[in-house]
């Protein structure tokens, strides 16, 4: 607790130092089209909506009743925590400077972000004010670690989760984001990029693969839940999961179509293919369950929609509608097997299938982007080709290695210092009472 107290004092000192300072120059720029601005505001709101209520409902419905608040809290608290980190240094490490592997400190405390759109060349987001590009990107910084929480649900210490998220955000997300979107080593077409760079429209590598594989690692390092395999661990409230999935679907329009950073043809295309891929994913997972399980499951249909959404994410600005249908359909089937079979075979306890859906679906999407990308959608980009597939695979590889190595180090350190896992008694009582002193439902 001492640590935390110091931390909060430090935070306050930061604030006090910064109050009266001028952070950005206000220059009205007549060129900012209010239509673009509106779309990015709306998209930012939609992406936040994905984390909570969306993901909070989706995930919390899947755990047992006694952990429902614990899971929701992870989403809610990360909305607060990661946003503050983002404003203080996260954005700068992602989008500051022209480094190959990570940003710099030019924009710590949001220094130097202007309202005008005539921003210096090193800043992306040309169509909207830097500040709005910053907030939109910040919403991604929230949801990515929140996705990881699915893997170690129902047993991780809250404090460890919080610290891990800050560190992971800083040391995994920031470099990756910079490399992929900050015109770094993995950025398509940037100088000296790996095999020419990879396409990632809205976060196949940065968001889904990074979180998915880190999640898998975390699940394995923290171990299975008590009673895994013997106790009744059915989702306590599938209605939440369905509603959460629907909210994710809706919010994803902001995620993907917002990644055009303008209300333009690219956004329009992203919107359409996102919807179609989600639809096809829902359908194909339901059908494969009909075949292998005898009944189309509700959880399966919801998972299929999410799988379709994950898979189209890197491709949204590059592929056409019919291939999007195919991508969603494939994702539904592949993730079905990833969730149902991989876990059973290897015996790890990725409680809410963060890896099975996001890791696998993201990888699939990244690769298929290399297949289906077409200049008819994005004239400045490449067409699908073997070469592009290889570049995409290379980006996947870098993401996987970076995520695994850094996550491993971070988790080890946390395990040794404060411990990753709550006490047995706490786990039996549930996170809600043990970690937060509250209960989800009182009858």
């Amino acid at each position: 607790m001492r640590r935390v107290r110091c931390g909060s004092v430090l935070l306050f000192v930061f604030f006090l130092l910064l109050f009266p300072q001028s952070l950005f120059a206000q220059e009205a720029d007549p060129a900012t089209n209010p239509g673009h601005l509106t779309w990015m505001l709306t998209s930012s709101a939609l992406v936040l909506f994905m984390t909570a209520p969306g993901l909070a409902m989706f995930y919390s419905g899947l755990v047992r009743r006694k952990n429902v608040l614990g899971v929701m809290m992870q989403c809610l608290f990360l909305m607060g925590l990661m946003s503050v980190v983002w404003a203080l240094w996260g954005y700068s490490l992602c989008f500051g400077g022209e480094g190959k592997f990570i940003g710099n400190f030019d924009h710590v405390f949001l220094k130097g972000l202007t309202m005008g759109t005539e921003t210096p060349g090193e800043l992306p987001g040309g169509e909207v004010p830097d500040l709005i590009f910053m907030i939109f990107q910040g919403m991604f910084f929230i949801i990515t670690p929140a996705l990881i929480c699915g893997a170690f649900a129902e047993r991780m210490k809250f404090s460890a989760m919080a610290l891990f998220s800050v560190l992971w955000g800083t040391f995994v997300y920031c470099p990756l984001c910079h490399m992929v979107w900050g015109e770094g080593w993995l950025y398509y077409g940037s100088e000296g990029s790996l095999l020419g760079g990879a396409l990632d429209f809205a976060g196949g590598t940065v968001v889904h693969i990074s979180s998915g594989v880190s999640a898998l690692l975390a699940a394995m390092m923290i171990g299975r839940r008590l009673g895994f395999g013997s106790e009744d661990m059915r989702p306590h409230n599938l209605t939440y999961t369905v509603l959460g999935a629907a909210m994710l679907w809706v919010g994803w329009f902001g995620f993907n179509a917002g990644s055009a950073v303008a209300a333009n043809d690219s956004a329009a295309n992203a919107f359409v293919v996102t919807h179609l891929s989600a639809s096809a994913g829902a359908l194909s997972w339901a059908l494969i369950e009909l075949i292998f399980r005898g009944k189309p499951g509700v959880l399966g249909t919801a998972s299929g929609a999410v799988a379709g959404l994950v898979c189209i994410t890197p491709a949204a600005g590059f592929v056409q509608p019919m291939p999007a249908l195919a991508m969603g359909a494939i994702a539904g089937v592949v993730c079905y097997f990833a969730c149902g079979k991989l876990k059973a075979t290897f015996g790890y306890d990725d409680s809410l299938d963060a890896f099975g859906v996001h890791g696998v679906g993201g990888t699939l999407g990244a690769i298929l982007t290399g297949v289906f990308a077409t200049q008819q959608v994005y004239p400045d980009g490449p067409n699908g080709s073997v070469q592009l597939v290889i570049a995409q695979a290379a980006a996947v590889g870098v993401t996987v290695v970076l995520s695994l190595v850094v996550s491993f180090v971070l988790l080890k350190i946390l395990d040794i210092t404060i411990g990753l896992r709550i006490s047995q008694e706490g786990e039996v009582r549930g996170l809600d009472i043990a970690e937060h002193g509250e209960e989800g439902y009182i009858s």
Partner: protein
Amino acid sequence: MKKVEAIIRHFKLEEVKNALTEGGLTGMTITEVRGFGRQKGHTEMYRGTEYAVDFVPKVKVEVVCTDEQLQSVVDIMMQAAQTGQIGDGKIFVSDLANIIRIRTGETGQDAL
């Protein structure tokens, strides 16, 4: 005095209640329970993990009555709750040592 506990199907509750009321019984207490017996449960599967759900939702009806009423209570319940299918449930009869009405403090049969 006797306590009669019947484990019955949910959709028979209304019928049982009405039959008992018509039979002159003025009170009962019901509880949501889950039963395990000859009636088989079902399996559920969530993203590939299968669960056998052996317990079937049932409702327990408790009626306290006099020794004289016992037979008629049991008969009424049996008739109203029967479908003839496995899982209709059981009736358990036990003795009560005393009954007290909290409101008045009456005891024994007067408390009913």
